[in-house]
């Protein structure tokens, strides 16, 4: 068994509303796993639980066999679990390039000690980070806006920046939260190519929440279908699309 992410019997309620109900999923190492489901199925909640931004009521989350339940997002980041946000987040008062340069983990400059006493080393690392950021920004096709304030970028460009951020460091797992929403078709093609390349060439594992079925169909195998807070089914996109239960969950019961 080589599940890199494993959620075991997760349960989460907001007040009286149980959003995640005894939900268990596994994400295989090196896969691009899709997660779909109607609105309110609990996809984003489950996502935020894995990403460490929501505490669990009960259950466990494992990363490569290690219990990471309720660890804060910055700790998960350093363990190689990265996420993007459904509504693109950016440091709006920094340029696109500076946004990427904020990312890399465990830099020397991070600790107070080295910031004051080893300026040469810090500078060398900053140069390294800048070089990497320039590569990444080229890769995601935002080189022409690298010195723009990130707050001024378009919605789609911000999404690309989100993906770019995950490329600044060596991630093991990347959680993509509706990365396609608000991105035009041409840009979306680039985005998907980039995701495939990261998966193939760098061995990134992806867990993808998406409403865009074309994107799910092209990228994801397997696909997990959530409904009412637990897994309804899991399989290839073909199986999922032909499953009458899924069709009913998405489009309502057929009227006959």
């Amino acid at each position, binding site marked *: 068994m080589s599940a890199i992410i494993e959620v075991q019997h997760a349960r989460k309620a907001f007040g009286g509303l149980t959003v995640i109900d005894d939900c268990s999923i596994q994400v295989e190492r090196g896969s691009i796993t899709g997660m779909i489901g109607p609105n309110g199925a609990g996809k984003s909640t489950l996502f935020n639980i894995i990403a460490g931004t929501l505490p669990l009521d009960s259950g466990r989350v494992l990363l490569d066999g290690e219990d990471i339940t309720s660890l804060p*997002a*910055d700790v998960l980041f350093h363990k190689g679990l990265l996420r993007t946000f459904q509504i693109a987040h950016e*440091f709006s*008062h*920094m340029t696109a390039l500076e946004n990427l340069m*904020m990312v890399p983990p465990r830099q020397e*400059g991070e600790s107070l000690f080295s*910031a004051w006493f080893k300026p040469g080393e810090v500078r060398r690392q900053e140069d390294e980070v800048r070089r990497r950021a320039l590569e990444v920004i080229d890769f995601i096709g935002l080189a022409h806006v690298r010195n723009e304030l990130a707050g001024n970028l378009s919605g789609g460009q911000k999404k690309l920046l989100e993906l770019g951020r995950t490329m600044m460091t060596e991630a093991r797992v990347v959680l993509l939260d509706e990365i396609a929403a608000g991105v035009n078709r041409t840009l979306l093609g680039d985005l998907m190519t980039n995701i495939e390349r990261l998966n193939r060439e760098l061995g990134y594992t992806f867990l993808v929440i998406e409403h865009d079925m074309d994107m799910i169909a092209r990228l994801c195998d397997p696909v997990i279908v959530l409904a009412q807070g637990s897994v309804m089914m899991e399989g290839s996109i073909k199986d999922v699309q032909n499953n009458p239960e899924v069709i009913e969950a998405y489009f309502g019961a057929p009227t006959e």
Partner: protein
Amino acid sequence: MNELVFFLNNVVVSGAVAGSIYAMGAIGVTLVFSIMRFAHFAHADMMTLGALLVLALTTLFPEAGLAIGLPTAIVMLPVAMVITAIAAVGIDRVFYRPLRAHKVKPIVIVIGSLGVTLMLQGLIRLFAGTSAQSLYIAERKAIFRLEMPFELASRPVIITEPQVILFVLTLVAVVGLHLFLSRSRLGKAMRAMSDNPDLARASGINTDTIVAVTWIIAGGLAAVAGTLLSLDVAFKPDLSFFLLLPIFAAAIVGGVGHPYGAIAGGFVIGFAETLAVFNWSVLLRPLRDSFPTWLELPNNLALVGTEYKIVVPFFILVAILVWRPTGIFKGKVI
């Protein structure tokens, strides 16, 4: 020319002194706001706490400064800064962090900080009493008299030793803060967190560390401001507390959350105060002969009386909030 010297003494020097103190206080207030999004009312009492620590240390080792030729209080200042910084982090851990952990509205934390204000004031009075005490214990305050190179100026510009030290330390603090925020990784992480805390966390920035660093900077600067204020005047348990309004006015005038704005705002408020209480008739007196006869020069031509100095920052505060609510610099984010 003596009139000009009078102007230099009462407006330029006094304004710069008040401005430096306000600026250092406002930097702390604004940094705390930009990182934790609440108005920290106990800030002035952190200033007093720093001054109290200096007073205690100076009382214990009154001769320490003689060897280096600086006032003992200045020699003790670094120690007091460290202790105040630790106390600031401690106050956050004990009083503010539990509130943040419960995700309360910022106003609740503001009220919490009012509680901390009362507590600190009580503690400070418990140890220091309520009377004024000089921070110069074994030595005397050095006063520099700068003679003006004009024939008609018979009076000197007067500037005291703590004022000179204040200007130097303000400059050091401002330059240091600028380098820290723009160059160091930790400073950039602070800017990142003030911009978007969720994203900062998802980018691997430990926000607890950033919060602690913010308190260390705010506490350290508060100790400097409180000590130099007490050196300039004398230590009193409520001396800094009465500066709370001008300090908040400075932070808001500059644009809340904007450290450079806080510095600018501090000097704007400081000079506005001294200009408003300055007796302009002194400057006009030499020109009296050229006035038409029906114009009698009054003895006092100040905009507001000295006893109403506090209305000046209040007026500026209201004016800024009405006409430019974001402050001189656009606030909210470092």
